[in-house]
């Protein structure tokens, strides 16, 4: 059996795919990767399905060892990564040779990093998905000493590519649709919500993330007394203390706090990747514009080939060879961080 052995691991690391759709009526939210775009980017780098499971790392990675030669890709929040002590590029695919140690340190920007393997992780499928759903009692966090089975890789030769990751690792503006409870907020509260800047709080996890307003707390016309309704990832609850709490992949399925609107799927990776202190703004868009943004994002996520490049450039393609640092055919690993800044 091909496998990745876990020598040490950060907190909150789980196996995630695109989650379990269709169980909302049974009280189980879809779950799956917090930054779904990262799954698509990993799939593009390894030329495989975005539905394959990857390891999601919440701010810090771990040390892994391959039981056999395998392809890996690293996506999402850029983290310091080394293979046997040599820095390797993030947002890129590499060969992890048998016995080599892959060491992934803290995130340099953003929060959730992803480790993909050629063929995908082959952990047990439960209720149609490999995703751990800790809030729902499915699966568990990855622990030191675990052996993560890896499926056969049908395409082991495709290796050494990079992708220009879509910038989403430092907060920014997210687009919001009005929902059934938006009218519970007065016009001046909505205007203030769209004008203010919000700072990502330290409270946040796979269920939801809290943001602190720069001004006064927000309140609805009806206080907190709304009837519990179906909630979905992206919903912005205004909780008892007047701060917005954005529901994320592993949220509960019903909620009774008034919701001011819903963040588009296209912008949820930006919410997921904000880390404490990063700032976010909300821009209300109408349903037609929202649908157009979602459609464009789906197209871009599913066909990111324009953003793929070969990681190691051929010498004849490089006009000024001497200006490049060539460290064993590997970049220093911070090129994308510079790209993002």
């Amino acid at each position, binding site marked *: 059996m091909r496998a990745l052995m876990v020598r040490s691991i950060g907190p909150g690391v789980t196996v995630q795919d695109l989650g379990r*759709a*269709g*169980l*909302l*009526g*049974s*009280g*189980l939210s879809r779950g799956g990767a917090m930054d779904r775009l990262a799954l698509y980017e990993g799939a593009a780098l390894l030329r495989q399905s975005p539905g394959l499971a990857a390891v999601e790392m919440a701010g810090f990675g771990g040390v892994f060892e391959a039981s056999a030669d395998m392809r890996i890709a690293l996506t999402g929040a850029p983290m310091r990564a080394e293979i046997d002590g040599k820095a390797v590029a993030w947002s890129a695919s590499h060969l992890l040779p048998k016995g080599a140690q892959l060491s992934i340190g803290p995130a340099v920007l953003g929060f959730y990093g992803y480790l993909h393997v050629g063929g995908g992780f082959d952990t047990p499928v*439960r*209720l149609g998905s490999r995703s751990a759903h800790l*809030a*729902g*009692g*499915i699966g568990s966090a990855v622990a030191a000493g675990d052996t993560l089975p890896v499926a056969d890789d049908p395409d082991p030769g495709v290796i050494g590519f990079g992708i220009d990751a879509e910038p989403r690792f430092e907060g920014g503006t997210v687009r919001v*649709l*009005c*929902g*059934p409870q938006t009218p519970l907020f007065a016009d001046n509260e909505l205007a203030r919500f769209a004008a203010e800047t919000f700072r990502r709080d330290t409270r946040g996890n796979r269920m939801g993330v809290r943001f602190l307003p720069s001004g006064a707390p927000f309140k609805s016309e009806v206080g907190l007394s*709304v*009837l*519990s*309704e*179906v909630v*979905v990832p*992206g*919903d912005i609850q205004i909780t008892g203390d007047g701060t917005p709490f954005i529901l994320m992949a592993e949220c*509960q*399925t*019903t*909620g009774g706090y008034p919701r001011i609107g*819903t963040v*588009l*799927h296209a912008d949820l990776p930006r919410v997921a990747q904000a880390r404490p202190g990063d700032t976010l703004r909300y821009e209300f868009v109408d*349903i037609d514009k*929202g*649908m157009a943004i*979602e*459609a464009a994002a*789906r197209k871009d996520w599913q066909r990111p080939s324009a953003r793929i490049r070969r990681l190691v450039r051929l010498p004849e393609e490089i006009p000024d060879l001497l200006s490049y640092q060539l460290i064993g055919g590997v970049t220093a690993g911070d090129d994308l961080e510079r790209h993002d800044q």
Partner: protein
Amino acid sequence: MTSPDRPDARGPSWPRVSPLGSDGVLVSFGDRLGEPANRAALAFRAAMDRAGIAGVAETATSLASTYLRLDPALEDRARVLAEIETLLADRDWFDAPLPENRRLWRIPCLFGTDRAPQLAEAAAEAGLAPDKAILSIATTRLRVQTIGFAPGQPYLGELSPEWDIPRQTQLTERVPVGALCVAIRQLVLFSVSTPTGWRHIGETAFRAFRPDAQDPFPLRPGDEVLFEPVTANDYSAIEASGPDGGARSESLP
């Protein structure tokens, strides 16, 4: 549509259809919980499932609304919305029959003791002696009004009016799986261990979520439940008997 007990006779008209996110539609039948609105939500979801409208990917209900998730890549959203509106206008959902294939469950419950320490407190809130409180709950045939918040977790109602007690302002740090908790004329049978503001009055060995079982979510919205009081002694044996926790079920006509 003129049910006399429509929950919102004074307010704006129901049902209301509104988008929820870019790929969802919420059909609300009221802004307060009541038997007609809950019945309407369950019946409309069942009708949507029967209609099988192309482009509707998933349906769910909460206490008084039906949620429809649409295929995100839908090209003709307007057509799907029109078909939903047509079905919605088809009848008065507030007096529609409940979904078919419902079951009546009898679930053994250990009320009070140190296992469910808030029975006396909740009974006092309801103005009842503890034994009368147990009797009141055990003799009320409850409906699963919705499954939600956590996997398989039922919200059951409606208890008699004296049970219209508020949730606690301070959360209980953690109730165990199987805890039976009360507030606002409803009971929750917890499927996960979690903090809660609902008062913990009973314990059952019934598991409402069984991720690896053939039927992971044994209870369905619309099912009915009777909680049968058992002694601490009997409960020990029931606890050892498996995830049904001694529950029995039968089909409802």
